């Protein structure tokens, strides 16, 4: 009996040491930060697959919502973020860059669309094509807000993100605020659930939303036309937006507003990680990593059918194209290819 006990203990210790041994032998250790929306998950999965199989790194992924993950990133606990919605957190992000906590690694998805959307059925029935079309009492009634009688509800961005304040200013400039509430859904998951739930029940939807997203492939939303994007106008609006963020909604001043700029999603790494010469190949690879929106949407489509199997999604993406071989040296690309 005693022998058996000893055997079990020693087996346990040997396995622990051998596990530690493998992690110490790995060429590098990378800690990635991931978010609670699907496009970030897919990017993180692809990058971690390449780092694991191509560079032989030990990859650890931590997933969470925007604020805690970005806070840990600025603090140096998470080395690389593969998808940053920079414009939504522009203030704190630029502050972290200025302080030298992180370095930006360029664009991840060249263009992403944000805007106001209406479900296709309602849009066709009432001929809703532009923001102007929405400003009728009888249209607002379709989207009635049960908590604010007499008004419609537009589910908006999450309060605390810049887009919430942008939407608020846009509502006032366009005059939408007389007909609709700018409703904060509280979290990304709640916004998705609200949209999906309305579609399941066949109810009209009026919401702020963005691409690339997996949900966009599942539901039929039509973007409403706004005044075309104009740089001068946008800059003027952003001054007011920043003022409101700092001093509260009373700081609103009359301004102009236009459609959202095509926003590029970016990547970033901690300065500590980027400056380590051993990590140079990894940083070079992440810098080159960039996937067009159409391909992201395709990967998201696969992710939806794969029951959330991220590794399968990453493999499918890597098998489907070969553009990624240019992001890394030939020998690394060969290793990744061999592992598929």
């Amino acid at each position, binding site marked *: 009996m005693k022998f058996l006990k000893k055997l079990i203990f020693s087996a346990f210790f040997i396995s622990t040491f051998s596990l530690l041994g493998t992690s110490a032998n790995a060429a590098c250790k990378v800690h990635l930060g991931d978010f609670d929306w699907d496009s970030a998950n897919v990017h993180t999965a692809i990058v971690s697959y390449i780092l694991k199989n191509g560079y032989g790194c030990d990859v650890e992924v931590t997933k969470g919502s925007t604020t805690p993950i970005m806070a840990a990133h600025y603090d140096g606990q998470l080395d690389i973020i593969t998808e940053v919605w920079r414009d939504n957190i522009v203030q704190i992000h630029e502050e972290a860059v200025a302080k030298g906590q992180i370095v930006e690694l360029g664009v991840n998805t060249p263009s992403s669309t944000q805007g106001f959307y209406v479900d296709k059925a309602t849009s066709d029935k009432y001929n809703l094509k532009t923001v102007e079309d929405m400003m009728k009492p009888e249209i607002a009634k379709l989207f009635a807000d049960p*908590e604010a009688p007499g008004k419609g509800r537009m589910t908006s961005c999450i309060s605390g993100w810049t887009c919430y304040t942008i939407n608020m200013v846009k509502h006032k400039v366009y005059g939408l605020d007389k007909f609709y509430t700018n*409703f904060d*859904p*509280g979290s990304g998951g709640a916004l998705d659930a609200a949209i999906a739930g309305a579609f399941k*029940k066949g109810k009209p939807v009026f919401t702020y939303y963005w691409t690339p997203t997996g949900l966009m492939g599942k539901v039929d939303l039509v973007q409403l036309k706004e005044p075309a994007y104009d740089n001068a106008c946008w800059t003027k609006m952003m001054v007011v937006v920043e003022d409101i963020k700092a001093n509260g909604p009373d700081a609103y001043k009359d301004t102009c507003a236009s459609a959202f700029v095509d926003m590029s999603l970016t990547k970033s790494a901690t300065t500590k990680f980027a400056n380590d010469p051993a990590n140079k190949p990894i940083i070079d690879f992440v810098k080159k990593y960039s996937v067009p929106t159409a391909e992201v949407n395709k990967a998201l489509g696969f992710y939806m059918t794969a029951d959330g199997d991220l590794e399968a999604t990453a493999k499918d993406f890597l098998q489907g194209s070969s553009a990624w071989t240019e992001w890394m040296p030939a020998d690394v690309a060969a290793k990744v290819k061999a592992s598929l």
Partner: protein
Amino acid sequence: MKKYKTYLKYFIYFVISVSVIIISYRSAKPRYKPEHYTDIFKDFSWLNDWPKWLDFPLMQPLNSGFDWLIVNYGMFFEGINNFLLGLYTSMRNSIVDLPWPLVIAIVITITYFASGRKTQTTVLVAFCTFFLGFLSPRYWDKCIMTTCIVVIGMLLCIVIGIPVGIAMARNKKVRNALLPILDLMQTIPSFCYLIPGILLFGLGAVPAIIAIFVYAVPPLIRLTDLGIRLVDKEVIEASEAFGASKKQTLWGVQIPLALPNIMQGINQCTMMSLAMVVIASMIGTRGIGDEVLLGLQQLNVGMATEAGIAIVLLAIIFDRITQSYGEKMQERTQPKKKINF
């Protein structure tokens, strides 16, 4: 004979687990399966890692069941939604419209009489109530919204929880059936029912009220059950000896004697409701919770803490009122024995 029965029981368990494994194997995706099922018995490499074909397909039926619920019983949930929302909005609007000194005066009056005219408790509660608005004028209306949601959630808990607790105490079978459900309600992560709540009821106050019910009703049910079972057997026997019917025993003896425990349950229920209403701000429920959320979204620790303090004050107010009311009850039903030396 008895032994044969237990063996039969084990046999049924065995058959069920084997058929479940067969079902999961058959419904697994082809790319996860070996080419022929006999391969499983030739090649044992699947014993290393959990094989992908050994995966009970629970997700798809749950999804389709949920869809079915939304499509077929949408009207039913709509009805619940409209009822609770009407209750909430009318309550909120009537309190928000009142001038704030009047609201504080009402809170003081309630506390004074609920606590059995205890000055100390009343002063503390009045101070906390004043401090809610004093912390930040923005908080006053939001605290009222939170209070309304908590009160409605609590009413729902009391209306359903206490009768269920009584039924549990009186019938062992009901208790055995309900205990696992209560365990489930207490341990399942709140987002598992918050997000489906949005699908059924839409964003806003109603999914929060439902979440409060799921999260806060178990302690009330458990404490009601416990309270009634703890009533002395002799007392019940005595009441039966006097010819009391079961109903009379329940209303005249068991419930009054269990009241301190039930009040403790209501107190716990309130505290848990308040905790849930803060989490519910993540599904678009307006209230003091969104101030915390906003502070955290902007990495503004001071703002989040300030709102957190407001929530603590709100909790103290609720706690002191229900607690002191419970103490008053206790004094009435179990007067302290005076010891004379």
